[in-house]
């Protein structure tokens, strides 16, 4: 018999309620310097459902010493964060590291109480676990030996009693959680709405162009990630990047500035080498209205046929 597994089956109703709750929640974004990060797994899921992919940059909890798959936090592009904030789906949580002046005795006491409780429960579970194993082993052995029932039951009872008296669960064997995200009040939605600050909007034209292009492509249903190593601004996927290859490399340029021909050639060459179409994108007049256009030009290397 295997050790008991915690059953994680959830009823249909609960599942749908849960997904609705997830979809209505306001995602919290924490800045680490100028970089926007997201920490909670449920919020990462919400963001992905809104089409915001981001990049995982931390060590993976299960296997921290490898680079192929990383874990939380999720680093967002500034455009991704700004889009979420504009949609009203995310809020910037202000940095509170400088505020706490001294030890909070109540919290410390809660922490120690929690640890003690955990220790006791884990000790009890360890004992139960041992007993179950012992029972299993002894039953199997007696089945082989085919001795009398009376003797075997007595022996088992003796061993179990010995275990009760002699078993000790050392403190060092206790399992402890190293939290990824910060626990605290800021995760309560009402508190979060009060705390939230505005998204810091940059003032330069390039960031504005990048944002407009990002928003337009996202509206059309594409998924976007960063493309620095491809020499462009974004990589455009027709679906979730987990399953699909990228179609386009987006390069955002200003409508008015002329682009030197050697730059055009360089990016076109690169695109043809990696089998992706290059999209040169510019945004129209810089007004607040929604109706401004984003102009796309695609580059594809073709031969003389």
């Amino acid at each position, binding site marked *: 018999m*295997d*050790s008991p*597994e*915690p059953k*994680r*089956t*959830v009823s249909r109703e609960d599942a749908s309620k849960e997904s609705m709750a997830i979809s209505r929640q306001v995602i919290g974004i*924490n800045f*680490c*310097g100028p970089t926007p*990060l997201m*920490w909670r*797994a449920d919020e990462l*899921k919400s963001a992905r459902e809104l089409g915001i992919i981001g*990049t995982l*940059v*931390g*060590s*993976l*909890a*299960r*296997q*921290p*010493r*490898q*680079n*192929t*798959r*990383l*874990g939380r936090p999720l*680093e967002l*592009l500034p455009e991704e964060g700004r889009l979420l904030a504009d949609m009203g789906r995310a809020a910037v949580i202000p*940095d509170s*590291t400088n505020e*706490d002046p*001294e*030890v*909070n005795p109540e*919290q*410390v006491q809660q*922490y120690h109480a929690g640890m003690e409780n955990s220790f006791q*429960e884990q000790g009890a579970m360890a004992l139960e676990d041992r007993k179950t194993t012992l029972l299993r082993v002894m039953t199997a052995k007696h089945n082989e030996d085919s001795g009398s029932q009376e003797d075997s039951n007595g022996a088992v009872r003796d061993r179990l009693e010995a275990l009760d008296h002699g078993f000790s669960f050392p403190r060092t*064997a*206790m*399992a402890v*959680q*190293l*939290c*990824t*995200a*910060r626990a605290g009040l800021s995760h309560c939605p009402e508190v979060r709405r009060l705390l939230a600050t505005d998204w810091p909007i940059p003032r330069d034209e390039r960031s504005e162009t990048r944002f407009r292009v990002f928003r337009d492509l996202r509206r059309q249903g594409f998924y976007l990630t960063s493309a*620095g*190593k491809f020499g462009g601004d974004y990589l455009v996927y*027709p*679906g*979730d990047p*987990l*399953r*699909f*290859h990228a179609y386009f490399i987006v390069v955002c340029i200003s409508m008015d500035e002329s682009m030197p021909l050697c730059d055009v050639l360089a990016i076109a060459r690169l695109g043809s080498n990696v089998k992706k179409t290059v999209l040169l994108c510019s945004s129209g007049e810089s007004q607040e209205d929604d109706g401004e256009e984003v102009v796309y030009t695609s580059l594809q290397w073709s031969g003389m046929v």
Partner: protein
Amino acid sequence: MADQNKTSAKVEFGNELLNPSELFEARTRSHKIPVRGQTDFIPTGSDQQRDRLLQSLDEHWNLVSEERVERLGNLVKAVWIPSDMIVELQSPAGKFWQTMGFSAHGKQCLHPEEALYLMECGNLQVFYQDLPLSIQEGYERFLYSKTMSIQHYQVFGHLKRLGYVVNRFDPSSVPSQYERQLNLPQSRDRSGRLPKRKRSHSPTSRHTGTQEGPTSKRMEEEKDCNREEEDKNLDSLPDLSAPDIDKIQTASHAASTTSTEGGQSRSWWSKEGSPDSDPELTGQPQSSPRWDFSSIPFPDLGSRRWLPSSLTSPDPCLLPGAVGSVGACDVAPWLQRLNLREVRMSRHEWERERDRYRRDINQDREVRRCRNWAEYQELQERRIQRSRRDRPAHLWKGPVTPLHDPAQVTSTGELLDKISVIKSTRLLEGASSLKGSEEWRICFNIYQPVTVAEFKKSAPGKPYSRMCVCSFDGPVLDLWTLKLLAFQSGDIPVTYAVVDHGDISFYSFKDFQIPTDVSF
């Protein structure tokens, strides 16, 4: 034990804190990461695609939402000290101590990035104000400064996860080029002064009492040589016999004692002792030179106009005290040693000599023949034309002149150099004169992944490379920065880690010379 993470299990997201039973069960969690499947190119909207996507996503959320659970006995306890920006260990360090951390006032300490990395690996639990810090708090508190931002940490973590040994770069630990030339044994502790080279007792070494660095020694030796010559002049005058090396030595030593006694620091560059030119002669008071050279007669024995038969006795105050007064000096044996023969020059050379040193324009025959100003100007023109016979006016008079004068002798290599548009340069050329920069600096030393037993923190040896962290958003790397950082790094190559929203690319630059098909 059965794999507990089945792909069909739904993950609960609400609370990220695990209850004791979950913690207990986590001991037997699988440590394998599922392999990513092949990706498609075109979304077809088919059920099969959707199912595969959902399966991938489930796997993904399972991995991402998993929390770190560690046995308390395996965790090292530590405390964050924000005032010093270090983490102090409170229980003995584990295996990581071989390559990370340092000792400070008796305690084992870690830099913030090292502590954060160990927290992410599940080896360390850092407390602040008696409560354990979460990874998020670690990021927000430890990566606050400009020296260790989140980009630096991403590079640090990336390299550590690959197995490299990474520690902070300390500019003072790089040996200077001179030290490398001397091949001094490298010691980690730089607080003690380097051992001084013993000064040998030679005629050129005078000031055995002073302490100075290697570069100033050269300047001083040069000065000593000059001074010795000057002393020789003074001392050899009263000598009647042939000059003797030993005599000079003793005489010069005598001179040195008098001069040091007097506490002189004679500056070679000016009569008044200027303090700037003698920085290394500390401990000797600066004063004006003892001799007024303008009033001491130095006979010119090579002149043809005046040949004295003997030299008068010099003033006793000019002589070293022990010598006393000396008689007149017979010049004849000295003159025999000088070459007083007249130089035989051709007429042309003679004229040139004469013209060079005694230019009286009215003595020029050709000028005398000119009757008026116009003729003189014509003469000048002709002379210029003669000297520039090979330079036609239409080429050389305009604003754009030829790159090269055919009359000048040159080599093919030099010509190629003249017509080149971009001058090639080596990385370290001219790099020593560059001043430091605020935005570009080397952050880390990288050592190759070795077995734990071989690496020693106190004597790590030469790093494999040094790392500079930048991003595509920041300023572009230019030649000036490349040279500056290559110089700062000494003989270790510098690698540039460019961070782009979580993605890291590494670049390095190497010196090479384009082969030219010419023998210079």
